[in-house]
């Protein structure tokens, strides 16, 4: 079971690399923002999975909650800023 979770963890890391490609290559800045949002959702899942692997889910869940809240505030701030500023 542990081996399975570690495999899933590696697959998730590879998927994050796919989103990272979009962040680095995105034609517009909104592509980058969207890729960042996808990465953060995957990071939340990754943290819970890591907690399952290390058998410390109670601690890692708190970290992922904090991460989700920070992501909400950050993404909204950047989107609002870009909305007022327009395309660079």
């Amino acid at each position, binding site marked *: 079971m542990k081996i399975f979770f570690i495999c899933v963890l590696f697959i998730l890391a590879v998927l994050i690399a796919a989103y990272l490609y979009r962040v680095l290559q995105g034609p517009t800045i909104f592509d980058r923002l*969207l890729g960042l949002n996808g990465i953060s959702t995957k990071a939340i899942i990754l943290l819970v999975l890591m907690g399952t692997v290390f058998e410390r889910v109670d601690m890692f869940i*708190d970290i992922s909650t904090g991460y989700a809240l920070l992501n909400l505030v950050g*993404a909204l701030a950047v989107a609002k800023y870009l909305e007022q500023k327009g395309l660079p």
Partner: protein
Amino acid sequence: MDILSVLFILAGLFFLIVAAIGVIRLPDVFSRAHAVSLTDSLGAFLMLVGLALHEGLSKNNLKIIAVLALLYIQNPVITHATIRAALRSGLKPWRRESS
């Protein structure tokens, strides 16, 4: 119980992989947002429910459900904010040429 959890996690992984392929393949911001929302809604749900099933009956399950509810409330807000900013700054959605 373990088999059910593995099934859920594999199904979630399928949707996550499809979403990653979509993020690379689709042509513009608006369509890519659909792919990201695929991850956010069903992929995260299946993965987290699979992990909660593996966890068994404990208070961690409640926390996992709280994270899931948080994701379901905040992800549409973020996607909507991004798409609205893109639309207001004058990006035109990609159209198929034949139409």
